[in-house]
């Protein structure tokens, strides 16, 4: 299992589009991915779970990845979280 603390780069936090992109990536990775903010942990493949964490810009979250190739998947997901996805 890989675990990492990550600071959120999206200016509107992990809500609309960024939440969708992140959840899609987590779901399609094939690994078991959880995201924790404070004392609440949710399945990262659940857009409702992720949205309900109420993650804002600059918040720190903890990501855990379990499965094959966990290190690479962690790298990709981290990239998504630190990048500002709100401006297109």
């Amino acid at each position, binding site marked *: 299992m890989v675990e990492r603390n990550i600071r959120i780069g999206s*200016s*509107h936090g992990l*809500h*609309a*589009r960024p*939440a*969708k992109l992140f*959840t*899609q990536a987590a*779901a399609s990775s094939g690994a078991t991915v959880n995201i924790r903010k404070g004392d609440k942990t*949710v*399945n990262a*493949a*659940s*857009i*409702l*779970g992720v*949205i*309900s964490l*109420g993650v804002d*810009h*600059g918040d720190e979250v903890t990501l855990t990845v379990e499965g094959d190739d966990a290190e690479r998947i962690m790298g990709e997901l981290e990239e998504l979280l630190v990048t*500002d996805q709100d*401006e297109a």
Partner: protein
Amino acid sequence: MEFTGTGIGRGVAVGQTVRMPDPLPEPADTPSKRGADDELSRATASMGAVARDLEKRAEIAGGTAADVLEAQAMMAEDPSLVDLISQATAAGKTAERAVFESFASFRDQLTAMGGYLGERAADLDDVSQRVIADLSGVPAPGVPQPEEPFVLVARDLAPADTALLDLDKVLALVTSDGGPTSHTAILAREKAIVAIVGTADALTIENGTSVIVDAAAGTVMTEPSAAAVADAEARIAERREAASAPLTPGALADGTAVPLLANLGSGDAAASAVELGAEGVGLFRTEFLFLDAGQTAPSVDEQTAHYVRVLEAFPGKKVTVRVLDAGADKPLPFLNDADEENPALGLRGLRALRANEQILRDQLTALAAADAQTDADLWVMAPMVSTVEETEYFVGLAHEFGLRTAGIMVEVPSIALLADRALAHADFASIGTNDLTQYTLAADRLLGTVAGFQDPWHPAVLRLISEIGQAGADTGTPVGICGEAAADPLLAVVLVGLGATTLSMSPAALADVRLSLVRFDRDAAQRLARIALDAHDAASARSAVTDAAASLQKE
């Protein structure tokens, strides 16, 4: 019968109504007769079907609408939701009831979080309705798609509804709820659709009723007489003619020129703005250049090339470029990466540029270079100016770079109140009504829960605008408007009455504003402005001016 609401724009439409279907009834909480496994597989099958349908809609819709729909498709099959539903079916509930309760529990969580997340609750409700409809074998509530053009009557429209609305078929929108800043109103303005929002009792209008929708008057007339229909059709023809008539420069009835300019966000939109009769550019936003650039600011050469493209589209005409307006809702990593509690009150606009002066200097260098290569009349202005000292700083710096015409945006009440002193130093002022409204009413314009405050008709906002108009007249300084307010045809007349000398708006709004201005002379505009200033709130200002304008036209 006549129903009254808030009209968006000046359009008129004649047609038959189609009602947006009512939400489905709440599924009864009766024990399942099918058994838990069967109920769960019914639920997951319907969730999958809805998700596929939403994905298909996302593909057709494209753009930002596609993002909303794709997110909804994911909600429809959300694993956390499936967990909740399987618990509910295991406890003996029907699939319908389990879906209803599970979605509702997430909806309540989102609503409790308020603000932006609270607004997502509507998206979730929509998905829930679709799944329950699929389970019950009834059509999903949603935008109807009849063959003939129609007038859509609804409680309010969600983005998911309007994303797939076939705009060629929609003659007009009538909603019982929602105000001038609702999603429906914004869509109507953007697409120039005739609309009346907040129409009391609109839902009592039956399907297939003949109506005249008159946005200028804010009325929906049911079963109109043949004479009324003929009159409305004449007005529709007049508007169509005006839209296709040779584009005359913006002016009042007495010939007072009020140049109508375009708000542009990129060089690509310049040509279509010219086609719609833009007499120049009142606001050219430069953010996208920087947002696209990523982690560093674009080079002087890159910027110059882009500015040249915009300026070339307007030879001999005014092009007002706003220097980088970052911060708050559009942060840039190389400008300000501090985590601010209140970004709208933070290091943004000119404040951020001053803290990173090289970025401002590079931008002014690029603008001066583009100016030298083209024939447009380049004006530059700074966003978020709040003091006289900042005015002197920016105008002085721009002049130093050889930019002859330098001005300030008025978005902060402090600078509006000291407009007489600020305008002594600026070559022009341009009022950003969206931010001016946000700061005057202390209501975050990005926050849905306080959206009701975001109304530029508010007399407090108008009084500040009149201060600037007065200062402009006293010092002989041009005062433009470049916010959403200028696109409201009636408010545009009020703004001219308050002293605005130019109006800048999204190009789609130009035709209606042009048509509205020529109906009033300067005296009338000033009388309407006085009436708006004397009102107690935004709604009464709007209705008092609407009434006064109607009676002025009859004289």
